[in-house]
């Protein structure tokens, strides 16, 4: 066998064996083959001579110096200096800043877009404002719930029918709905219908506001204080029952009292009683009486608007920041580009 007829695998083995690149097991196997294969030994000897000849080639000396000329190849600045010198960092910063500015502006526009919240979609209607019950206590539930209740109460006002509001109370708070239902039923049952006893014009409601105010204070607390609230509400309801005849008597005795009436309508828990009270008292709410209610309703609406404006203004700074950042970033990018061109 000559080297010309060796398969590629044997050629690789021979080559690796000459270079000492076979692992121990392959080397032992190959040496065993060599011992019994004379043509393979000849091929090995011939290849070794070839490699030895090539390795005889002398090491050459460079014909000249390949050192770089400092005049041609400028002194290399550190990479960070080169980045600034070529304007790369400035361009990159400008581009990133511009992109961030656009993101800020778009985000601010999206966040400030109207109609994203339910309460913004429920503005108080002009006709509902006078009929909204003026109650001062702080809202105990979520704003949208309160608004829904208010809207329902407004719709319920003309008919003075308690069931829809009682249903709403069931939806909102089961525990207090029971109370509300009782109060509504009691109040509706005890208080005479509005059509039956229209009060004279100019009559001022002196409906016992004093007991109602503690009730409002008590019911403005969280619903977890159910027992205390229920007691207070029951007492308020009984006061309301007692107030109806008293109210009739006062109407007869005091034709023109001062307009100092406060209609106490605690939010949430007392809402079921609202229609019944309204059913009783609304007919007497002539022009002098509506004014305080309107004012209170406007106050609430104004407060809501201010809150909404505050929420909107929370994101306006983002847009302002983006608007300020955008031209600065563009200027930085242009400056970096000019610098890169000069470099």
């Amino acid at each position, binding site marked *: 066998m000559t080297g010309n007829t060796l398969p590629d695998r044997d050629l690789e083995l021979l080559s690796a064996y000459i270079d000492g690149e076979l692992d121990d097991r392959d080397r032992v196997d190959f040496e065993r083959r060599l011992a019994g294969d004379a043509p393979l030994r000849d091929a090995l*000897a011939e290849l070794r001579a*070839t490699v030895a000849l090539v390795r005889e080639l002398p090491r050459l000396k460079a014909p000249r110096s390949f050192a770089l000329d*400092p005049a041609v190849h400028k002194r290399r600045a550190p990479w960070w200096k080169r980045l600034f010198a070529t304007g790369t960092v400035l361009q990159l910063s400008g581009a990133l800043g511009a992109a961030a500015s656009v993101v800020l502006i778009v985000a601010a526009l999206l966040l400030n877009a109207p109609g994203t919240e339910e309460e913004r979609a429920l503005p108080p209607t002009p006709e509902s404002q006078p009929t909204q019950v003026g109650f001062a206590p702080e809202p105990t539930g979520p704003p949208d719930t309160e608004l829904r209740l208010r809207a329902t109460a407004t719709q319920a006002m003309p008919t003075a029918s308690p069931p829809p509001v009682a249903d709403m109370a069931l939806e909102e708070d089961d525990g207090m709905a029971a109370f509300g239902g009782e109060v509504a039923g009691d109040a509706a049952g005890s208080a005479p219908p509005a059509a039956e006893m229209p009060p004279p014009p100019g009559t001022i409601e002196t409906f016992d506001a004093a007991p109602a105010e503690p009730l409002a204070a008590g019911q403005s607390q969280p619903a977890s204080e159910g027992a205390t609230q229920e007691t207070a509400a029951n007492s308020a309801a009984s006061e309301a029952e007692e107030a109806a005849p008293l109210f009739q008597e006062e109407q007869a005795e005091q034709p023109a009292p001062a307009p100092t009436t406060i209609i106490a309508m605690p939010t949430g828990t007392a809402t079921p009683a609202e229609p019944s009270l309204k059913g009783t008292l609304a007919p007497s709410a002539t022009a002098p009486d509506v004014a305080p209610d309107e004012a209170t309703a406007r106050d609430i609406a104004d407060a809501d608007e201010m809150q909404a404006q505050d929420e909107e203004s929370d994101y306006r700074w983002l847009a302002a920041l983006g608007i300020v950042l955008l031209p600065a970033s563009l200027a930085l990018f242009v400056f970096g580009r000019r610098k890169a061109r000069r470099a």
Partner: protein
Amino acid sequence: MDENKLIHAARHGDIDAFNRLVLAYQDTAYTVAYRIIGEPDAAADATQEAFISAYYKLDQFQGDRFKSWLLRIVTNACYDELRRRQRRPAASLDGLENVTFRPDPDLNPVPESPEQHAQRRELNRAIQDCLDALPDDQRVVAVLVDVEDYAYQEIVAITGLPLGTVKSRLSRARARMRDCLRAVRELLPSEYRLMDE
């Protein structure tokens, strides 16, 4: 100053430090380039281009084998030069059957007798011509292993080739070299005759 400090200084813009590295490795780089390309001028050009490229790519150097990294750049410069030569061939590459011996560029004069010098010149010329007759990819591996005496793993690092490819290219290159030198054995000195003679 040791090599790492020179590299560090060169990275920070000290071209004098880089030139000291150039002086330390220019013979090796030129030898590899000449053995791969086969022409002194083209080898010098490729070597110069390789050092310039290394200077501007010094930030990319990772690790502690500067010589291997530099030789990788040199071999790439040689490939570029060979591709240029293939597009615009200045001289034909002779096949195995038509090996001719060009005048020795006398790159490395060694003090020896005129007869010895002539004999060595002839031998070196024959070997170089056989190297030149190899395909480019086989010649690069053969030069790095048999001329520069690199281990296989270092060839893998320099060329980026898989180990199996390095082995197969090397074995084929050696087989071709064997056949080439056998064809011109009558021109070789007797002490360099091959075994099957």
